[in-house]
């Protein structure tokens, strides 16, 4: 096991009947990085993540999460019976991995504080529950029954339960779905804090801006395969992509041109207009443009 690699996946496959959900995924996530898995619905994101979390069994391939095969949690139902692990091995691994699932598990009749305190008891080095509640912004709701929380507040509780054990590795499956813009920004701050403290983070998301803001690297998954991995600004050769320059002609009509050398073009335009170019913009393709092109061309 290399200390630099938090997750190593080779040739991961999983099918449900005839439906191949994951068709040979290779993936490396380094320790300490924020890795975002992007992909359309049904691309195999959740299946992949749930295999890494030890919720699903794979059909084939090699998976190591924090140096351990997550399949060990299946114990006696494991394929290789000789490898049946001792219970504390499973518990140790579980206590190092934090999970925020896509769906929420609701404890209707318990309060936020009760649930977080209870879950803290499962972890050997749990964080202070009240501090965690404050960190996810639920202090005002600590005494509220969980069924009275709004969708976004429930999601914060999910995050609180995911980080209460001070995980080395945190999985977040579409964590900000249902958040308003302000809540999303607060959540991003939380992720940056966790990351700064050394937590490795794997998140799946639909939101390109989220991936671009948070992730050190982005993996795009489509049709059960990882089609590209890179930093958000280099994905899909974004850095080398042509820039689009738009301006208005003296008649007031919009005009645009694609250019590999936009500065030269702007200089030329400035000379042509003798100063300010009316309505000038220079843009590179957004991550969203690149992403849509990548998954659209399949």
């Amino acid at each position: 096991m290399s200390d630099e690699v938090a997750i190593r996946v080779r040739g991961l496959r999983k099918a449900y009947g005839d439906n191949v959900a994951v068709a040979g995924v290779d993936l490396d996530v380094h320790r300490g990085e924020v890795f975002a898995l992007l992909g359309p619905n049904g691309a195999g994101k959740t299946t992949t993540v749930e295999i890494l979390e030890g919720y699903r069994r794979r059909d084939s391939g090699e998976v190591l999460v924090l140096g351990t095969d997550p399949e060990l949690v299946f114990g006696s139902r494991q394929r290789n019976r000789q490898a049946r692990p001792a219970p504390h091995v499973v518990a140790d691994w579980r206590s190092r991995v934090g999970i925020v699932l896509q769906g929420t598990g609701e404890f209707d009749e318990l309060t936020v504080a009760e649930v977080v305190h209870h879950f803290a008891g499962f972890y050997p080095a749990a964080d202070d529950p009240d501090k965690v509640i404050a960190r996810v912004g639920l202090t005002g709701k600590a005494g509220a029954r969980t069924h009275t929380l709004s969708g976004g507040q429930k999601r914060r509780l999910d995050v609180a339960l995911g980080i209460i054990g001070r995980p080395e590795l945190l999985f977040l499956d579409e964590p900000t779905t249902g958040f308003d813009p302000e809540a999303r920004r607060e959540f991003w701050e939380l992720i940056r804090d966790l990351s700064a403290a050394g937590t490795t983070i794997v998140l799946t998301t639909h939101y390109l801006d989220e991936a671009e803001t948070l992730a050190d690297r982005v993996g795009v998954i489509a049709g059960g395969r990882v089609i590209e991995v890179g930093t958000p600004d280099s994905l899909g050769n974004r850095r080398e992509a042509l820039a689009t320059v738009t301006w208005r002609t003296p008649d007031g009509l919009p005009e645009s041109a694609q250019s590999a050398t936009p500065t030269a073009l702007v200089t030329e335009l400035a000379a042509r207009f003798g100063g300010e170019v009316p309505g000038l913009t220079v843009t590179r393709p957004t991550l969203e443009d690149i992403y849509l092109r990548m998954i659209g061309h399949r």
Partner: protein
Amino acid sequence: MTTTTKPATPVAAPSTRRLGPASLALRQGRLEIRQFLRSRESVVFTLGFPIIMVLIFASIFSDEIAPGVSYTQYFITGMIATGLLTVSFQNLGIWIPIERDRGVLKRYRGTPMPKWVWFAGKVIMVLVTGMVMTALLLAVSVTLFDLNLPATGTAWLTFGWVSALGITACTLCGIAISSLARTARSGSAVVTPVALVLQFISGVFFVFTNLPTWMQQVAALFPLKWMCQGLRAVFLPESFGAQEPGGSFELARVALVLGAWCVIGLVLCLTTFRWTTRRDG
């Protein structure tokens, strides 16, 4: 996005001790009981139902079914058995699918909590509610309907082991049957008819020996009939044993059948229990 240098591992955590098995189980049990008490419907339904039934039936029927044995006494023993069935089998068979559907079980599985702790929490909840319910039923029956509490140590001992074995078998079967329900809502549809039919054929509402023979034979395959019979040995006069189908209270057979159901229930739990819903892998 800049790649800033980050420490390789999280900052050292304060040394906290992992909780021992006993405190894990007790915490879980406390949590389950708290959840149970806070859902008012389940408290009223689970604890109130047997008492309401006793109040109704014991007030309507007051005949003697044998010398010195009133129908009321007979019915109350049946209702104690039914109560044990309700708090264990019915309660778990209805609630576990709801928790599974909500993803509560899935969430527990993602923590380092040893799996048995969750089951221990359910068992503690069932045992506590079972004891409370039995105590309430006995209190009502002794004050309003002249039921006599067991007079001898042997009778109390029988009361203890019949209840313990019965509630264990029903708990295991309740956990096992919870896996049959596909969705949260179907739990009660699966469990309620089973419980109701068992009550009718096992000698709760009707004197068992008055039932058709084939019905008696079917009932004898399931635990409730034997729980009722074992409790009759506790609360009815020794002489009534002669009226039972086997000519006595057959306590050895009660122990054998209930023990067998514990084993069957345990095997079913171990082989079929699901932490996630079917559509959820």
